[in-house]
């Protein structure tokens, strides 16, 4: 565990701060991550199959109508503002949502392996979303009629919420969460959701199937301002709640009883955390399908760097999650250009081995 020690990449900070206090380093890392995200956003806006240059984009953004001759062409303008910008915005929202959901869930279950994708929450959200896609015109018509564009993300949110609630009930007894039960119950619930989703897909017609296939692979392609308007508020709600959970989640790392002794209303904390995770994960799944591993990789890396204090871990996760997803998306758009590789494939290809590494590394320290 020496890599947790204070003499990390920012070891120079050590002597200035109180010993054992990593908050100064955490603030520095968060500031750096802000810069990284800004650069990543700019890079994503400027890169792609078309050749609109980064310089022209930045210039057009800073001085919209300074000199028409140097500014973006009309075609580039459409590409940047109606194709790339919504895609980047969606990537930032979803990357942040997935990473923060992972971090909150890990705090809630008191385990670094908890992740909405691994314990079936994403599958539950998928079931909700697929229900709306397939049954939206028939059985669920009242719902889609009532909620309009919000029907899909809302259904995904409810699906994710149902799985999280059942999972928590099953795996927690007298305030102690059994990790083995959590993972096994997650697999069982995920499989059940998958089976129901399969049945719905079986019932789908050709047009719905095309929608489904595209969506299931997990991709930011097809991002539109409309999708952002539909999923954005729900994701934003989940993200906005998370800072208020940070102190409670910190206290919870000492166990539920001790958190309560420290003045935390533990039951309320747990339910708010579950709803926040389900909202952020559900709405993300609704617009971009299942993008795995961001929720486990990002918080884990950051804990090594700045420690597990959620007051810093949550915002840092949002920033790094957004940056990493944008980078993965940039790779997915360019690696086989002009075609696109679904981003879920890239995050899984990188995240899978990383997850294995965590497990192997953990085995020496904490028995699962």
């Amino acid at each position, binding site marked *: *565990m020496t890599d*947790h*020690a*204070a003499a990390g990449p920012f070891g120079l900070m050590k002597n200035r701060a*109180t*010993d*054992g*206090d*990593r908050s100064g380093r955490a603030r520095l890392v968060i500031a750096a991550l802000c810069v990284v995200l800004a650069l990543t956003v700019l890079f994503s806006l400027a890169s792609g199959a078309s050749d609109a240059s980064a310089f022209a984009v930045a210039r057009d953004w800073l001085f919209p109508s300074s000199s028409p001759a140097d500014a973006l062409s009309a075609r580039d303008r459409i590409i940047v503002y109606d194709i790339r910008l919504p895609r980047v915005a969606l990537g930032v929202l979803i990357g942040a949502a997935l990473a923060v959901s992972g971090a909150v869930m890990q705090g809630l279950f*008191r*385990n*670094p392996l908890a992740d909405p994708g691994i314990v079936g929450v994403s599958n539950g959200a998928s079931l909700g979303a697929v229900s709306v896609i397939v049954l939206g015109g028939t059985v669920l018509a009242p719902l889609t009629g009532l909620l309009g564009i919000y029907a899909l993300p809302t259904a995904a949110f409810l699906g994710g919420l149902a799985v999280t609630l059942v999972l928590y009930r099953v795996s927690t007894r007298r305030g102690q969460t059994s990790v083995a039960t959590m993972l096994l119950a997650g697999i069982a619930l995920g499989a059940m959701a998958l089976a129901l989703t399969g049945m719905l897909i079986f019932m789908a017609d050709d047009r719905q199937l095309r929608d489904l296939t595209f969506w299931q692979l997990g991709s930011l392609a097809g991002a539109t301002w409309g999708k952002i308007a539909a999923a954005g508020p729900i994701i934003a709600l989940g993200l906005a709640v998370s800072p208020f959970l940070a*102190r409670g989640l*910190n*206290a919870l*790392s*000492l*166990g539920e*009883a*001790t958190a*309560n*002794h*420290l*003045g*935390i*209303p*533990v039951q309320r904390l747990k339910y708010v955390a579950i709803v926040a995770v389900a909202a952020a994960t559900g709405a993300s799944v609704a617009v971009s399908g299942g993008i795995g591993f961001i929720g486990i990789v990002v918080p884990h890396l950051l*804990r090594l760097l700045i*420690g*597990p*204090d959620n007051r810093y871990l949550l915002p840092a996760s949002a920033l790094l999650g957004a940056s990493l997803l944008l980078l993965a998306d940039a790779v997915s758009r360019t690696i086989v250009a002009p075609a696109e590789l679904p981003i879920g494939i890239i995050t899984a290809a990188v995240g899978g081995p990383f997850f294995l590494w965590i497990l192997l590394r953990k085995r020496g*320290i904490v028995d699962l």
Partner: protein
Amino acid sequence: MIEARNISVSIGRKRIIADVDFEIRPGEMAAIVGPNGSGKTTFLKAVSGDLPYTGNISINGRDIAAMKPWQAAAMRAVLPQATALSFPFTVHEVVKLGLTGGRSGVLPGEDERLPDRALARVDLDGFAGRFYQELSGGEQQRVQLARVLCQVWAPVLDGSPRYLLLDEPVSSLDIKHQLIIMNIARDFARRGGGVVAILHDLNLAAMFADRIFVMHRGGLAAAGSPQSVLSDELISRVFECRLKVGALPAGNTPFVLPQSAAL
């Protein structure tokens, strides 16, 4: 004052403690002693608000069942028997969690330095930067005590006394640190707070406690000053082995000498 009347706790169908009465005034240190399984921890958990109970428990005249967690946290801090930590926090960060509930009782600007002061009190100077999970059991226990001290640093806040509820605070400590911790607890009481500590060491109880509560099979077998409670007959009966109580020639603090496991 902490007052408990007719406390009974059942887990499932099994009644763990029945009709326990308990009372501790500010300025006092109380020890709860008794054999394994006699209900000491269950009773302390009821007072801490961890378990449902029947009867009435109040702190400074307020029913704990009607208190919000943060209101209770301002009046008492709890040291559990064992604490598992789920993420790699440093010692400094763990101790600082004691400040979660808000007002420890130091001036606002001093909050930052409180973890270091608390660590110094439990003889863990220089441990702030270490990782909690890498410490020995006894060191972890002292870190937790420092965290608890942070929560209620001032024994009296705004005129209200505050309380330490300690479940076996010295169980994994060497004898020097047992004495250090017991001194911290007694000092907390002398400065106007109250302390309830579950202890296994009858001699430490006799030495430090103003009052001893002896629990036996889920009920209270005796309560009172060490001199009145510690008798050969009572403790031999409660602990089901032969024990001899003596008194040091210099003072009137009794001590207990084990004789044999058989009665």
